[in-house]
């Protein structure tokens, strides 16, 4: 790994200043994507600005929403009693990311800033209609995810928290790649307080996306039966050594049904 200048600021404003000053800076959260990427020479930043010194971890459960601080680890979200009660699907999703060691390091802010096309959190954010809070603004999930490893974040912008509206019911199911444990396909289904459904799919395409035909069907009836007759088209989906686009299209239907069965 190429060497770099290491910084560990304790304030968001200082982190932004360091980033503005750096020739080619990168923020570091849990590091389980960035560090391996740097080892392979695929990223060679001049400066690493470690956000762990910000100590912004924690969860606040309100009457209508759950706010998770950006530095909260996946393990902490999975174990949080408030999240488990308010949005059980979200807690279960966090508890299924990677493996126990990854969940002790990885954070919700890091996952969303990276926006891996096979990551789990983007599906929950998009389906639940979360709002991403940064040091500069609040970004609705529908405008946040802009494609493969791309987000609406500016280079020096830092996610500070994520706010999830509490739904009536929601659930997640994924088919993990057995080696990487990333989602081959993951589907998050939500029924909001008014009965409207939202469905978000990760792992299947170049970035997380909503499955409109399923949303229409599930808004009428939030049950697996409602999906009968919906055949997901493989066009635009990922094809690789792990599975063809047609295989992933089929998996979307299967995972949607499992997510509905798991929804609480």
């Amino acid at each position, binding site marked *: *790994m*190429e*060497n*770099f*200048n*290491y910084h*560990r600021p304790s304030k968001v404003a200082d982190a932004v200043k360091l980033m503005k000053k750096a020739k080619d800076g990168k923020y*570091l959260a849990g*590091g*389980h994507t960035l*560090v*391996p990427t*740097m*080892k392979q020479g695929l990223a060679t930043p001049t400066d*690493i600005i*470690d956000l*762990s010194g910000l100590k912004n971890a924690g969860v606040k459960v309100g009457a209508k929403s759950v706010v998770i601080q950006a530095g909260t680890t996946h*393990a902490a979200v999975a174990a949080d009693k408030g999240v488990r009660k308010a949005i059980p699907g979200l807690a279960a999703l966090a508890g299924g990311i*990677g*493996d*126990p*060691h*990854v969940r*002790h*390091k990885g954070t919700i802010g890091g996952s969303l800033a990276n926006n891996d096309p096979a990551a789990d959190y983007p599906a929950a954010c998009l389906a639940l209609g979360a709002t991403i809070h940064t040091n500069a603004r609040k970004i609705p999930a529908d405008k946040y995810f802009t494609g493969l490893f791309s987000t609406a974040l500016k280079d020096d912008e830092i996610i500070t928290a994520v706010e999830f509206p509490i739904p009536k019911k929601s659930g997640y199911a994924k088919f993990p790649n057995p*080696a*990487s*444990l990333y989602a081959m396909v993951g589907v998050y289904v939500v029924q909001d307080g008014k009965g409207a459904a939202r469905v978000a799919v990760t792992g299947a395409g170049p970035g997380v996306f909503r499955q409109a035909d399923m949303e229409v069907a599930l808004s009428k009836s939030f049950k697996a039966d409602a999906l009968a007759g919906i055949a997901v088209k493989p066009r635009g989906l990922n094809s690789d050594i792990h599975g063809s686009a047609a295989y992933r299209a089929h998996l979307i239907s299967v995972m949607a049904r499992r997510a509905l069965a798991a929804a609480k």
Partner: protein
Amino acid sequence: MPTVSMTVNGKAVKGEVEGRTLLVEFIREHLGLTGTHVGCDTSQCGACVVHVDGKAVKSCSTLAAACDGAAVTTIEGLAKDGKLHPMQESFREHHGLQCGFCTPGMIMSAVDLVKREGKKLDEDTIRHGLEGNICRCTGYQNIVKAVQAGAEKM
């Protein structure tokens, strides 16, 4: 170069590292504690698992500088007064290893699992709990047995 201070196996240590120095490099090369292994070097195999502030993490994907002020426990820190930790003893008794390369990580993960899930562990919990640890020899059967028995004795 950043200076790091941490407590490793109860002992205060200090050292100069580069920004890029990994926790596992600091442990093995600076401190000479070679029980922690580097297997895949890509945060998948778990041979490098140590405890940082009481939580199992992969030290091959953690920067040493980021652990300034932390309390670290490695496999060398488990045995007390010349006596193996119950989980180590259980791996020996149940033959939970063949080549032994993955064993330090397996044991550190198993101890962490017991801390989180308690001493009564069913097979499913153990297998899921060891998802981040890869063994290429045993087929896992005896590892699962060892963890189950070791947990009860902890």
